[in-house]
């Protein structure tokens, strides 16, 4: 990197958006194209300040929409350099078309997705609707529980997506407001160390390499489309060992451990909550506190939402008797996606734990340690009886009992 370096303290107090911006700066991204939307706006504002003060030396373009942001990223990535953007909610929805095009062209962009509800009704607060919306777009998806994770995972996103076995774009998810706007202590890497960890960008089929003309974004028919999609799927599967390798290297560098499936108190647990984002940490407190009551409670969270770690999860959940899959997105007429996927992981295994689906926290509604303890207690009853004591799905914390329980 040849831009001005920034002197950072060993411990900084950063919110999640600052973490994103700092990670993009340290990755020395060549082109950042962006459009503002709450709660991810501060990522690009911070980045703009770095740009204005010479701390980044690439191109920063404020485009006229999120669709254009991702379109510019795709063109720039195909030209042969590192690209990134940030968005949330409606912006993510507007990008979706291009997200598919980016992954289909095997271009390793990084998208900092600060998770927020999708309208209508309009709501600027955090839930996982946008993360779910993009789940089949062919992007690798990493999930963070706090600001430190957001910083670490956004850095690692570059290394994972740009790996020669993968060459796919990566979304680095964090919870809107809960992470993006909450100041937390973060231990950043030194600029040089961070950049060297990620490494230089190695272009593949670069449009700016005129010795080898390349055609990007072809048309296929039935004769080839399936094979392209199969290769894309294979590249997503190939991300598992790469993610593991990158997590390992990161641990050696920082001492911070990341796992494809994160678990808390899983050893000997009877019941488990499976969730994403900040809820993980809240649930770990609940699980710890329940030890006194003799409830053996665990928390499990896939760090990788895509590719989804089906086998790893199945293996980890073999001895758990009752599970609550927590989905922070409107169910849209079925069980939540996380429930669906975990059920998919377990259906062919010996263990067939009782599984509840909890839809919670929509539009930024909080979930407390207290509530999570109650959920664990319900699970303990399920585990004891070997069957669900209530209904399969509950809209946790919704007003009006008639809205709360669903038989499905």
């Amino acid at each position: 990197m040849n831009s001005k370096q920034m002197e950072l303290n060993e411990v900084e107090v950063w919110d999640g958006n600052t973490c994103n911006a700092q990670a993009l700066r340290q990755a020395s991204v060549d082109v950042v194209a962006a459009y503002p939307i709450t709660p991810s706006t501060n990522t690009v504002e911070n980045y703009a300040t770095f740009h204005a003060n010479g701390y980044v030396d690439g191109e920063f373009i404020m485009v006229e929409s999120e669709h254009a942001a991702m379109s510019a990223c795709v063109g720039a990535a195909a030209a042969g350099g590192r690209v990134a953007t940030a968005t949330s909610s409606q912006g993510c929805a507007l990008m979706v078309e291009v997200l598919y095009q980016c992954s289909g062209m095997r271009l390793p962009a990084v998208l900092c997705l600060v998770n927020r509800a999708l309208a209508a009704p309009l709501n600027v607060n955090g839930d996982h609707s946008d993360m779910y919306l993009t789940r089949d777009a062919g992007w690798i998806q990493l999930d963070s529980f706090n600001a430190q994770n957001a910083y670490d995972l956004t850095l690692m996103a570059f290394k994972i997506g740009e790996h020669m076995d993968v060459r796919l774009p990566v979304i680095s998810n964090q919870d809107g407001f809960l992470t993006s706007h909450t100041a937390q202590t973060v231990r950043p890497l030194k600029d040089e160390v961070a950049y060297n960890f990620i490494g230089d960008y190695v272009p593949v089929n670069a449009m700016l390499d005129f010795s080898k003309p390349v055609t990007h974004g072809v048309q296929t028919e039935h004769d080839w489309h399936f094979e392209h999609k199969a290769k894309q799927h294979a590249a997503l599967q190939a991300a598992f060992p790469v993610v593991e390798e990158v997590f390992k290297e990161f641990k050696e560098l920082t001492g911070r451990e990341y796992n494809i499936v994160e678990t808390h108190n899983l050893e000997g647990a009877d019941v488990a909550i499976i969730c994403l984002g900040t809820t993980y940490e809240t649930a770990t407190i609940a699980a710890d506190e329940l030890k006194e009551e003799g409830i053996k409670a665990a928390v499990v969270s896939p760090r990788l939402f895509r590719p989804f770690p089906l086998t790893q999860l199945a293996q980890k959940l073999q001895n758990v008797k009752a599970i609550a899959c927590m989905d922070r997105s409107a169910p849209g007429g079925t069980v939540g996606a996380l429930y669906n996927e975990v059920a998919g992981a377990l259906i062919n295994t010996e263990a067939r734990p009782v599984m509840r689906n909890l839809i919670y926290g929509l539009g930024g509604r909080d979930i407390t340690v207290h509530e999570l303890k109650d959920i664990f207690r319900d699970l303990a009853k399920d585990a004891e009886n070997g069957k669900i004591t209530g209904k399969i799905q509950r809209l946790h914390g919704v007003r009006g009992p008639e809205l709360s329980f669903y038989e499905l």
Partner: protein
Amino acid sequence: MSNQKVIKNLKTFSTAAERFEGSHVLCPGCAHSIIVREVLNATNDNLVVGASTGCLEVCTAIYPHTSWDCSWIHIGFENGSTAIAGAEAMNKALRKKGRISPDTPEPKFVAFGGDGATYDIGFQWISGCFERGHDMMYVCLDNEVYANTGGQRSSSTPIGASTTTAPAGSTSYGEKRNKKDMLQIMAAHGSPYVAQVAPNKWKDMVKKIQKGFATKGPVFINAMSACTTEWKFQPHETIEASDLAVDSLVFPLYEIVDGTELNITYRPKNIVPVRDYLAFQPRFKHLFKPENEYLIDEWQKRVDKYWEYLQRREEARV
């Protein structure tokens, strides 16, 4: 214009190394291919080309084949301009960072889009690119219809044309609105150079393309692209249809430099009546029914008025 070819005649022009080659499946007689060849042959510089979804794109890059012997990208229907803007930004970034050496000649960035991609769905993206001032050329292949999806109207479709979504029928004469004046709109964006071209007037076209390539900033070219399939003439009649368009002044050839200097670049010796232009194309067949003929007169008046307007602007240097 250091790297641009010296083009004296058709022979020097056509012996240039081709960067748009065979293996495409555009209809026989499609003007898109003629225009693209003329644009690419006008320069020796390295090219980064983008295409929006449409006939050109679906017919020239069908895996595992490609017609493009240059860097090429297609993303979607609306964002061909922004793809090229992104590539242009990357070129700048990599030069700034020293990853492309300053001795490497600057490439040219070109985006092609149909009139649907340009006048309608991609308008916002093009507007954004022009406002940001990317150093690129946008070429609209204006066949006045959504050809690739089978002939629906666009906001470039002229009044009275029969299309699949604005068909002429017992109570309709087809398209009800006038074609959007895209050139003026793009000039109003502050574009340093905009021009209208037609493939039959190839010398005029090559000159404008070279002028465009020599201009820093976003350049807009509106190229009349006769479509044998949707305008419904015979494949060997493409140039005749184009001649009628420019000689009737339905599609006048002119340029606007810096939004303030308008030059008419072609003045037909014998101006052909609009009626002849319309009569050549079965998409206007129904206009010759007695109840619709008034539209032909109105059309002629409109064309006359616009020609006068262009001449006055040229004279006044505005």
